[in-house]
C-alpha cells in the first residue's frame, strides 16, 4: 500500500478532525518532538528529506529556512507566512488541505516557525475560500486552547502567534513579495530583489513564505524522518504530491501519489482516461503558467527536473486537459485574458503587452487574424519572457503561449486562412 502522509488523517466525510480527534490519530506529536530538537537539527532534517516547495517554483524548503539570519545574528522579529492564495487557474489542491486537514497545516506552521525562530505567522488565504477560512480560524483557536500556539508552547520557551488573513482577491498576491505588500495593507505590487525576503520581507523583517502543501509535508517528515520521506518518492525529490486533473476525463479529482508519478498514470489510471467521445489534445501540467505537454510526452515523470527537461514545468501539479472539442486558440485567449486582467500594472512590458496579446488572440479566434499576427505573438513571447519583467507573472503567461504557438501552429493558420474559427459551433456549448 502506498503511504499518504498529506491526506492520511482526512475523514471519509471530509469534515476536519478537531484538535482532540487529530491528537488521537497522532497529531501534534511532531510538534512535541520538534520543540525538543534544535532549529538547526530541524532544518537539517528537512534538507535531507529533499522537500521542495509545492507553490510552483520548487525551491528547497530546508535551504529557504536556512537563509534566515540566526537569532544571535539578528534579534528582531521574523515572520513565517503561509501562501494560501491558490489562484493559479486549474489548481485546487491547497483548498483540500485547508478545508479537510487544517490542524496538519497549523502543526507544520509551528514547526516551520520554530525552525526559523519566527514568533508571528500569517496564513494568507484567498477571500473566496470561505469554508477554509472558517475552519482554519476555528483550528487556530483550538490549538491555542491546547497550548500548541501562544506563549511558551508546551513549556519550551518558544512563543508563536498565528493570524489568519483573508485576501481582498488578486492573483498577484500569491507572488511572495507582492504578498508582503498585501499584508501591509497596500496594493499588491511585487518588490525588487535584492534584498532577499529571508533578510527583509514583511515590514522589512526577515520572512519566509511557504505554500500550504509544503508546510503540510513538514510534520510527517519530523515524526518519521527524512529517509522514510525520501523513500515514498519515485524521483530524486522527496515525498508525495497532490496531483489533480480537471477537464473531460472520466474521474476528475485529486490524488496523493508518490512524487514523480508519470503523467500517463495520473491521467489514465487515476483520472480514468478521457470521457466517451473526447480525445486528449494536450495538457497544462501545473496550472495556467505552465507550457503544454502533448500526448507524445505523456510518459514524463511529474517531478521538477523531468517536466522541465521536456520544456514545461511542474507548477502546482494540477493538470488541465484540453480535448478535441475545444478550440486551442480559444483556450489560449482564455488564459491570456486571465493574465492581462491580473497583471498588477507595475512594469510596462507586462501592463501593455498582455492586453495586446489578448487582443491579437481574440482577433485570430474571431477569424480576423493576419499572418503577421503570429510574428507579433512570437515577438511578445521573447519580450515578456524570463528576465524582462519585474516578476514572474509575465513569463508565466508566456509559457502556454510559446508552447501553443509551437504545438497548435496549424490551428493558428487555419483560423487565419479560413477567416473563421473551425470550432465555432462549440464556442458556447455545454459539451
Amino acid at each position, binding site marked *: 500500500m502506498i503511504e499518504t502522509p498529506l491526506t492520511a488523517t482526512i475523514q471519509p466525510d471530509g469534515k476536519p478532525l478537531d484538535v482532540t480527534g487529530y491528537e488521537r490519530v497522532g497529531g501534534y506529536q511532531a510538534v512535541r518532538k520538534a520543540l525538543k530538537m534544535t532549529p538547526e537539527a530541524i532544518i537539517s532534517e528537512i534538507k535531507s528529506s529533499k522537500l521542495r516547495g509545492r507553490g510552483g517554483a520548487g525551491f528547497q524548503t530546508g535551504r529557504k529556512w536556512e537563509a534566515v539570519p540566526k537569532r544571535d545574528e539578528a534579534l528582531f522579529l521574523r515572520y513565517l507566512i503561509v501562501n494560501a492564495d*491558490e*489562484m*493559479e*487557474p*486549474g*489548481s*485546487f489542491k*491547497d*483548498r483540500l488541505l485547508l478545508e479537510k486537514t487544517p490542524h496538519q497545516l497549523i502543526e507544520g506552521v509551528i514547526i516551520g516557525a520554530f525552525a526559523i525562530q519566527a514568533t*508571528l505567522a500569517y496564513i494568507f488565504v484567498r*477571500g*473566496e*475560500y*470561505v*469554508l477554509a477560512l472558517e475552519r482554519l480560524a476555528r483550528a487556530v483557536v483550538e490549538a491555542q486552547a491546547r497550548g500548541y500556539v501562544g506563549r511558551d508552547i508546551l513549556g519550551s520557551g518558544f512563543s508563536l502567534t498565528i493570524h489568519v*488573513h*483573508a*485576501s*481582498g*482577491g*488578486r*492573483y498577484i498576491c500569491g507572488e511572495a513579495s507582492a504578498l508582503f505588500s*498585501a*499584508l*501591509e*495593507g*497596500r*496594493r*499588491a505590487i511585487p518588490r525588487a530583489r535584492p534584498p532577499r525576503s529571508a533578510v527583509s520581507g514583511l*515590514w522589512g523583517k526577515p520572512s519566509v513564505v511557504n505554500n500550504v502543501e509544503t508546510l503540510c509535508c513538514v510534520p510527517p517528515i519530523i515524526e518519521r524522518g527524512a529517509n522514510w520521506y525520501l523513500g515514498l518518492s519515485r524521483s530524486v525529490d522527496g515525498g508525495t504530491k497532490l496531483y*489533480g*486533473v*480537471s*477537464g*473531460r476525463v472520466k474521474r*476528475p*479529482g*485529486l490524488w496523493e501519489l508518490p512524487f514523480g508519478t508519470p503523467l500517463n498514470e495520473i491521467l489514465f489510471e487515476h483520472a480514468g482516461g478521457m470521457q466517451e467521445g473526447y480525445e486528449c489534445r494536450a495538457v*497544462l501540467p501545473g496550472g*495556467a503558467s505552465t507550457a503544454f505537454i502533448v500526448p507524445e510526452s505523456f510518459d514524463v515523470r511529474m517531478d521538477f527536473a523531468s517536466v522541465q527537461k521536456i520544456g514545461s514545468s511542474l507548477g502546482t501539479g*494540477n493538470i*488541465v*486537459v*484540453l*480535448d478535441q472539442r*475545444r478550440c486551442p486558440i*480559444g*483556450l489560449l485567449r*482564455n*488564459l491570456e*485574458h*486571465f493574465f492581462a*486582467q*491580473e497583471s*498588477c500594472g507595475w512594469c510596462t512590458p507586462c501592463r501593455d503587452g498582455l492586453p495586446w496579446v489578448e487582443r491579437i488572440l481574440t482577433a485570430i479566434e474571431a477569424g480576423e487574424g493576419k499572418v503577421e499576427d503570429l510574428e507579433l505573438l512570437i515577438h511578445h513571447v521573447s519580450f515578456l519572457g524570463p528576465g524582462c519583467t519585474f516578476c514572474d507573472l509575465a513569463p508565466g503567461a508566456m509559457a502556454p503561449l510559446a508552447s501553443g504557438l509551437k504545438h497548435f501552429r496549424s490551428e493558428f493558420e487555419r483560423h487565419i486562412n479560413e477567416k473563421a474559427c473551425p470550432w465555432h459551433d462549440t*464556442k*458556447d*456549448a*455545454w*459539451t
Partner: protein
Amino acid sequence: MSTVEQDFVQEPLGPRLRHEIATITRHAEHKRAACIDALKLVQKRFRFVSDGHLAEVAALLEMTPAELDGVATFYNLIFRRPVGRHVILLCDSVACWVMGGAAACAHLCERLSVKPGETTADGRFTLLPIVCLGHCDHAPAMMVDEDLYGDLDAARLDDILRRSR
C-alpha cells in the same frame, strides 16, 4: 441606483461598526494592515463601499481617502459600486472554460437579462466573472454570496437562482 439604495448608503458607519473597525486595527501590527478587513466589514453591512464610508474608514486607519481608494480598487472582492442582494461569482478560468463555462455564462445572462458585470433590474443579483475558484474538478463552478457550487448545468443553475430569494 434606486432611491432606497441611496438612502441606505448615505447612512454613516455608525458607532457599532466604527467600534468593530477600531478593534481589528488594535490587533493589527500597523493600522493600515487592517484596511482590507475593515472594508470587508463595511461591505458585509452595506454590500459595497460608498465614497462616504471609504472616507470614514480612511480616517479610522489614518490613511488618506485617495490612498485607501487606491487599495480598495486594486482588489477584486472589494466593491466600490452598488451590487445586488446576491453576488454571483462565476468562474471564467481555464478548466471551467473547457467544461462549458461559456454556456453557463450565456445561460445566466439570458435568465437574468444582464451582461457580466451588471445587476438585475430588480436588484436581486449581480453577475461577476471571477478567476478559478479552486473547484476545477467540478467545473463549471460559481459562488453565490458565500456558497460554492459546482457541476453546473442549465437545470442546476435555474434551481440555484430559484432558491436565492
